[in-house]
């Protein structure tokens, strides 16, 4: 900003500050004085209205008293009470009509008896009306009073007073009067400006605020004044609460800010509010202030011109100096400043000339320095460029590696996607990180639904028979770090609730330290395999049944022949028929075993444990095999621990175990050999041990001894009868019921088979088929 303007402005500012301070103080003073004056005026007006109203109503109470004390009327009423005739009634009516006509505001006068019934009235329509519950009647029995009631949408006054003769209440007089006189008092508002008014309010029968007369701004009244709506009409609320005070800056019935004086006419229940809009109330003050502001503005404008002139005078030499220095600025260092004179500005000019010489000298030095620095910067920049190049090369290498890794990942992905089985990979939080299309196909969920979810939230593997969640294969993979097989008869519940039988395995994923960090689960839909399995079992079952019919025929007819009923047989015939019967018996056994095996295979057999004494089951089996023991002259011994108690066993299955172990031991032990059966009780198990001095199991066959239809080499050679199903059944039963079986054997010396069943008993298993 130019010095010229600066000077002018500083003058102006100083002037303004003083003016504003003085102006503000004066305005406030004016404001308060004016306001106080206005308030005092309003207070005066208000109290004069209230006084006026009070006087008017007191006057009217006196008028009621005059009526109730009319002795002539009282006498007539007394007489009428004793002798109800038309004449007396017409006299009463005549009397009250006269009274009504005498006073301008009176409209109707009625006489009420002690029962509240109107017996006489200037208005015939009112005769026989009952007013016994009305406040004006009830209170009118005691003393004179004035009440306001609404009639045809307009308030009227009702005056009442007791009619007493010699201390006895004869009735109540009721006087209806119009409120024209009251309206004349409050309506003119001449002394209340543009917005002021006098309000008379009361509580109506419902307890809401109502006003005796139409308000000045009836159209702006924003709400019907409910007693609980406390948001506006504060002055009247206050008045009706009996408050007599000044209220400034308060909301009236229109929601406008007003200044009000309130008072309460106790005996009438009437609130009086004299109020003026606050804006109106203060308007005179604001007018004064606006005149003041205009004056101030004019003053400022004229002063500005004056200040300008003075500043121009001071700033002229400075303007010239500025121009000369401007020339130097344009590189023209040889320019001479030429200002003559003795004031401060001339001195300043001389200093400039000296300064220019100094600047000339130093600029040369600076030029040299800049040149040197620039050279250095150029060298540095070259270095930087070389380094950048090297970094870019490294980045390229990294990019290549990344590309390779991506390709590898793609390859792996493609391999996983093209595997025929379902494959999914979970991390250590059991969340699915990868899955292939077959997983999607079998499970019925799409990839989006699977990836990132805990696998068991979507892929629900359950055991087919118990319907419990099967998560063992995953848990164990994490726990043991070894590949786990899914147990038989696992079912996957698909997204559409269909069930798919599945099989396969889970393999742990390990990091470099060997810690399991995830798991790969591979499974496949085995619906087809299951169907084939089922068909096979059904076939075996049916075939077994059909096989039994011809076997029964052979059985029964050989029996009949042997019994000699159809003619006596010679010894040879008997011997041959015996062989037929024996062969047939073996066939029956084989069919039974086949049937059992088919049930064991499909897992549909039942285990129903009940409390049994295991030694009893053992004894029964021994009893059955005794003929064979005798035949082979085997030395059989048994030894049971004494403290064996009943445990939960499936009798049928336990019998199968004993039968097969015993018959094996006896079958594969040469004549006169030894067989021993022991039942021991350990801390947690019952142990069955059967030892024999038989032919033993060849080392090469030991692994396969428990597999279905397998028979050891030496047994086949010896041509002993046997199906290859017994040990398979024992193993399968014990696997399912929580027990186990193992053996030790020495070829040609004998074998020792051990079976363990937990003391807690066999595990229950629901199924559909019992074994024979």
């Amino acid at each position: 900003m130019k010095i010229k303007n600066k000077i002018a402005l500083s003058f102006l500012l100083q002037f303004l500050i003083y003016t504003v301070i003085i102006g503000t103080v004066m305005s406030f003073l004016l404001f308060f004085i004016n306001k106080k004056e206005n308030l005092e005026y309003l207070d005066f007006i208000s109290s004069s209205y209230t006084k006026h109203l009070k006087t008017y109503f007191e006057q009217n109470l006196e008028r009621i008293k005059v009526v109730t004390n009319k002795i002539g009327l009282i006498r007539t009423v007394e007489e009428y009470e004793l002798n109800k005739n038309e004449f007396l009634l017409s006299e009463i009516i005549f009397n009250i009509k006269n009274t009504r006509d005498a006073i301008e505001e009176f409209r109707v006068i009625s006489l009420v008896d002690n029962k509240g019934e109107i017996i006489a009235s200037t208005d015939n329509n009112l005769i026989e009306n009952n007013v016994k519950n009305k406040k004006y009647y009830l209170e009118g029995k005691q003393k004179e009073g004035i009440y306001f009631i609404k009639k045809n949408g307009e308030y009227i006054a009702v005056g009442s007073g007791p009619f007493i003769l010699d201390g006895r209440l004869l009735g109540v007089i009721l006087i209806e009067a119009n409120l024209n006189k009251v309206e004349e008092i409050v309506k003119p508002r001449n002394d209340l400006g543009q917005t002021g008014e006098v309000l008379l309010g009361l509580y109506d029968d419902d307890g809401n605020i109502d006003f005796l007369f139409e308000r000045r701004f009836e159209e702006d009244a924003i709400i019907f004044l409910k007693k609980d709506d406390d948001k506006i009409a504060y002055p009247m609320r206050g008045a009706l609460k009996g408050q007599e005070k000044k209220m400034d800056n308060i909301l009236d019935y229109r929601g406008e800010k007003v200044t009000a004086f309130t008072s309460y006419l106790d005996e009438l229940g009437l609130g009086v509010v004299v109020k003026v809009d606050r804006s109106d109330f203060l308007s005179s003050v604001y007018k004064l202030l606006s005149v003041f502001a205009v004056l101030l503005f004019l003053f400022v404008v004229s002063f500005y011109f004056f200040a300008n002139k003075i500043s121009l005078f001071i700033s002229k030499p400075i303007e010239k100096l500025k121009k000369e220095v401007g020339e130097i600025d344009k590189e023209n260092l040889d320019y001479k400043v030429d200002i003559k004179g003795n004031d401060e500005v001339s001195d300043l000019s001389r200093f400039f000339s000296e300064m220019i010489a100094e600047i000339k000298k130093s600029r040369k030095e600076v030029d040299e320095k800049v040149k040197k620095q620039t050279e250095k910067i150029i060298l540095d920049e070259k270095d930087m460029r070389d380094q950048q190049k090297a970094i870019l090369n490294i980045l390229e290498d990294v990019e290549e590696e990344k590309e390779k890794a991506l390709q590898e990942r793609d390859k792996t992905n493609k391999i996983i996607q093209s595997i025929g089985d379902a494959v999914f990979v979970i991390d250590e939080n059991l969340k699915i990180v990868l899955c292939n299309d077959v997983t999607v196909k079998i499970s019925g969920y799409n990839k989006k639904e699977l990836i990132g979810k805990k696998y068991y939230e979507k892929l629900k593997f359950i055991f087919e028979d118990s319907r419990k969640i099967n998560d063992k294969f995953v848990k164990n993979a994490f726990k043991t770090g070894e590949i786990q097989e899914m147990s038989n008869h696992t079912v996957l519940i698909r997204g559409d609730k269909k069930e798919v039988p599945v099989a396969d395995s889970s393999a742990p994923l390990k990091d470099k330290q060997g810690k399991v960090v995830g798991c790969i689960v591979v499974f496949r839909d085995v619906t087809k395999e299951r169907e084939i399995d089922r068909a096979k079992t059904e076939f075996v079952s049916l075939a077994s049944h059909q096989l039994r019919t011809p076997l029964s025929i052979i059985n029964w007819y050989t029996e009949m022949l042997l019994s000699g009923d159809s003619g006596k047989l010679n010894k040879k015939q008997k011997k041959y028929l015996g062989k037929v019967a024996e062969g047939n018996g073996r066939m029956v056994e084989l069919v039974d075993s086949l049937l059992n095996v088919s049930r064991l295979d499909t897992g549909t057999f039942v285990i129903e444990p009940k409390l049994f004494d295991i030694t009893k089951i053992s004894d029964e089996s021994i009893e059955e095999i005794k003929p064979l023991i005798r035949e082979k002259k085997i030395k059989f011994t048994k030894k049971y621990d004494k403290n064996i108690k009943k445990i939960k066993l499936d009798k049928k299955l336990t019998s199968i175990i004993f039968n097969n172990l015993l018959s094996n031991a006896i079958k594969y032990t040469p004549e006169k050999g030894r067989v021993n059966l022991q039942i021991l009780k350990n801390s947690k198990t019952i142990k069955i041990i059967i030892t024999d001095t038989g032919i033993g199991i060849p080392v090469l066959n030991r692994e396969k001894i428990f597999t279905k239809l397998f028979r050891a080499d030496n047994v086949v050679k010896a041509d002993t009868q046997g199906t290859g199903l017994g040990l398979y059944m024992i193993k399968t039963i014990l696997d399912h019921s929580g027990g186990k079986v193992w053996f030790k054997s020495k070829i040609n010396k004998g074998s020792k088979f051990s079976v363990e069943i937990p003391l807690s008993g066999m595990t229950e298993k629901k199924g559909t088929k019992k074994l024979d």
Partner: protein
Amino acid sequence: MTKKILIVEDEKSLAEALYEKFTKEKFNVVIAKHGEEGLKKAKKEKPDLILLDIIMPVMDGLTMLKKMRSEDWGKDIPVIMLTNLNDSDKIDESLKEGAYDYLVKTSWKLEDIMKKVNKKIGKK
């Protein structure tokens, strides 16, 4: 008094063997080839005991048993199931319908069947 026995069996050879055995033991034997015939004959002949096969044409043994038990005349006739089927379901079902016993043909000699019957209804 001679006891009357009804044999319901579709396999002719088996029915014959039973007929021979029981006639020889002085039983009055009636033969039926299937359930429906068995039902008719049982109602007509009022046998003292019925030997009942399960798998048969026209009407199987269990259906016959159920129908017979639903009639007044058939409520109390003792029935022994004599069959080659040994599903636990069938055994349970027969016993529930009031069969006295359940015998698997291949496991039982004629002699033993005879003893079983005699034990139930007494010889002659």
